[in-house]
């Protein structure tokens, strides 16, 4: 099932804008390898789940996958064939607002060649350009 919050304070939110660059969450923290976004995008819960499944199927229980983003923001839409007006539609899906530089997936416990292949499959499920990154040892 696609990721979404268990409890929320407000059911609907305004659209907002996606500006700037990732000032945090832009370094590898848990694993050894990761993928980093190169654009500002909204990633839906379904896309995150598709990425997770793509990685776990390729790894066949080897290694460990870390998901660094969560879809906190609801996106509303109106049902089909509905007249305009009568208020804002219900939340249709949930998104994570991701800025350029954010690490979205991390991997550990596998060799680099395996990690590259697994994360390439994850990147294909994402709505943006991504790049493969390796943990920096030292300064």
């Amino acid at each position, binding site marked *: *099932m*696609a990721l*979404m*919050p*268990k*409890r*929320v*304070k407000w*059911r609907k939110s305004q659209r907002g804008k996606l500006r700037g*660059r*990732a*000032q945090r969450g*832009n*370094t590898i923290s848990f694993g*050894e390898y990761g993928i*980093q976004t*190169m654009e500002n995008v909204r990633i839906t819960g379904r896309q995150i789940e598709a990425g997770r*499944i793509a990685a*776990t199927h390729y790894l066949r*229980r*080897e*290694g*460990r996958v870390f998901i660094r983003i969560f879809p906190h923001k609801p996106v509303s839409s109106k049902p089909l064939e509905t007249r305009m007006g009568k208020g804002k539609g*219900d*939340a249709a899906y949930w998104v994570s607002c991701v800025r*350029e*530089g954010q690490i979205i997936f991390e991997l*550990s*416990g596998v060799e680099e060649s395996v990690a590259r292949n697994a994360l390439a499959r994850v990147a294909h499920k994402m709505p943006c350009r991504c790049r493969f*990154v390796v*943990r*920096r*040892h*030292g*300064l």
Partner: protein
Amino acid sequence: MEVNTLVAESRTKLGTRDAREQRKRGRIPAVIYGHGESSVSISLDWHEVEVALAHGARTLDLKLEGKALQLLIKAVQHDHMDARPVHLDLMRVNLDERVKVGVSIELRGTPKGIAEGGVLDQLLNEIEVECLVTQIPETMHPFVTDLGVGDSLLIKDLEFPAGVVPLLDPEERVAMVRVVAEEAEETEAEEGEEGAGAEPERIGRVRKDEEGEGASS
């Protein structure tokens, strides 16, 4: 560990705008502090710094206005893509001084527990150590080939060079080979059961008319 000699220029103008101009000119802004003296803002050649960092340098020999300085690289700030250094913090040190620094841990080998169905988990990526400035290790490379399923590598199992003292609890885990839980298949099985129409619970006071709306939709 290599010690590199770089030529530094002192900066008279400070602030974000000047720092950006320095970077455009191929220089990295940096600051020198420590030993109770006042801090000095300098700039360094970008390429020389990148080469020094790529070679694992932890100290730098600088020439600033004819004076030779020995400095410890205390911190490096990187850009938003975590790719290029944008600022350095340099601390004045004596070569006979003991300092506290973080040393990264890079595991080597494939544990035997992986063949038995385990997964290697690295729990500690960096360890704080105390040592002489001249003895800072670049990276720790412990071998994990002997770890079976359920076995752990502890800090006391690491071999530190002479004069390097770890500052963490010796019983703390660095890595372990854990048994893979059968979660993945279960969660996939659950996917079909739960529908996409599930809605999160509201926190706090909910108006009556909203409650009715939620129930009807």
